[in-house]
């Protein structure tokens, strides 16, 4: 564990795990957009595929990411470490599971309770996507903290991370919409993403153990 180390010691330790953080940031970027895109498909049977369904999904993703950034940033103040970072991934994996197993029940209940498909899709998006997306959002600022070792390069590091995770998002969007939906069931795609997040989280935790 990192307890008892000075800030300088922590920083030198973290310097060497840059590639891992970049890889994981890429993964989270990929998964955020892949889930968002599948979100449209998930809601369509209950709320249609009109523009307001996309409006609901995108706005909930934005609000969830905003909250995630805030919380992730706050958590990065004290003793940033790969263990907690890995935990975000594990929790996000668990957060995605209700989409696979309870989406129909949740949407059914919302459909019965709310007549207007605009507010129905907004509530359903919140129930299904808010928690996993917020958890994935926490990864971004925490990644920055793990990689920044001085103020002078902080902007550059943040830029590099945004670069990698946004490219991940682009690839997630493209692969999902062009190929994944053509090859697999939606639940298969989601379960695979859960597995990838579990793997990513375990990897971070393993590195944390090894280095402490």
């Amino acid at each position, binding site marked *: 564990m990192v307890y008892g180390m000075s800030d300088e010691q922590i920083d030198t330790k973290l310097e060497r795990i840059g590639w891992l953080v970049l890889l994981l940031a890429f993964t989270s970027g990929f998964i955020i957009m892949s889930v968002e895109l599948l979100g449209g*498909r998930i809601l*369509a*049977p*209950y*709320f*249609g*595929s*009109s*523009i307001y369904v996309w409006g609901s999904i995108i706005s909930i993703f934005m609000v969830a990411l905003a909250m995630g950034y805030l919380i992730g940033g706050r958590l990065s103040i004290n003793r940033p470490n790969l263990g907690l970072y890995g935990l975000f991934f594990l929790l996000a994996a668990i957060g995605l599971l209700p989409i696979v197993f309870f989406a129909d029940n949740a949407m059914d209940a919302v*459909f*019965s309770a709310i*007549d207007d*498909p605009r507010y129905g899709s907004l509530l359903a998006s919140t129930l299904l996507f808010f928690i996993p997306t917020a958890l994935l959002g926490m990864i971004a600022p925490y990644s920055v903290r793990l990689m920044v070792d001085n103020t002078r390069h902080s902007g550059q590091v943040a830029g590099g991370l945004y670069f990698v995770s946004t490219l991940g998002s682009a690839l997630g969007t493209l692969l999902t919409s*062009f190929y994944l*939906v*053509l090859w*697999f*069931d*939606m*639940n298969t795609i989601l379960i695979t993403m859960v597995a990838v997040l579990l793997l990513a989280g375990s990897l971070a935790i393993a590195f944390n153990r090894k280095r402490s």
Partner: protein
Amino acid sequence: MSRVQVLAFACLLCIGDVTGEVIHREKSLYQNIEIQQRGDDRCLVFAVRRDDRRQSCFDTENPDRVVFSYVRMTFGGLLLQPKPSSILIVGLGGGTLPTALNDLYPTAKIDVVEIDAAVVRVAEGFFNFKANDYLKVAVQDARVFIKRAARLGSRYDLVILDAFTGEYIPEHLMTREFLSETRSLLSEGGVVVANTFSSSELYDYESQTYKAVFNEFFNFKLPASGNRVIIARPAGLPDRETLEANARALAPGLNRFGVAIESFPKYLNTRADWDQTAPILTDQFSPANLLKNR
């Protein structure tokens, strides 16, 4: 101008003449809508760049005439249900079909679901479409309408699925779950009629999906038409004599719409002319519009 330029210019004009003059154009939330007029024919077009797809046409001089063969084919559903008292139509287009059915069955309750409010305005403004006490339009996503109607216990004698975008049928309106919801809306002996294309790999998937939900159905194709109309009835399909008797009874009423109903029964067959190993489309797996280009 050189001779080549003159020829090129003349040819531009001739292409312009073939597609017709655009008399109205508007961008809606869902598509680019154009109204084209060529001679007496006025057409609703959901413009997708060059391969414009004419959704619906009507003859301004002879408004009763049904211009498109696929719309005429849709009347084939009446052979299995000659006296529907309630009808659901998904997709308004120019409103030709609901208007004709309202004329034929003035006391039948007809519900039309159309996602795009602009299409309703255009149908009213350019195609003489008018809602009335029996003929009503709901501006809504069809999936939402049908799910809600099924829960409220609504039943229809005839359901016509004709929802098209500029591209094809929306993906969530082609799945097994959607068709099951639609089936649950049918009254005793109720009939589903679906307008589809018969080209591309999607034909196999779509056919298998309908078969999974409705078992055997009439696969209705006319020579020289790229459309295929599915006519399904969960209560079972009638024999040829019944179809022909119904066709004779319907013929006088359908005559003025240019629908040669008496020629239809011989084309109604249940032969599966598609790849029966194709997977079915579900809410989990519906890459429908990606398959369309194959």
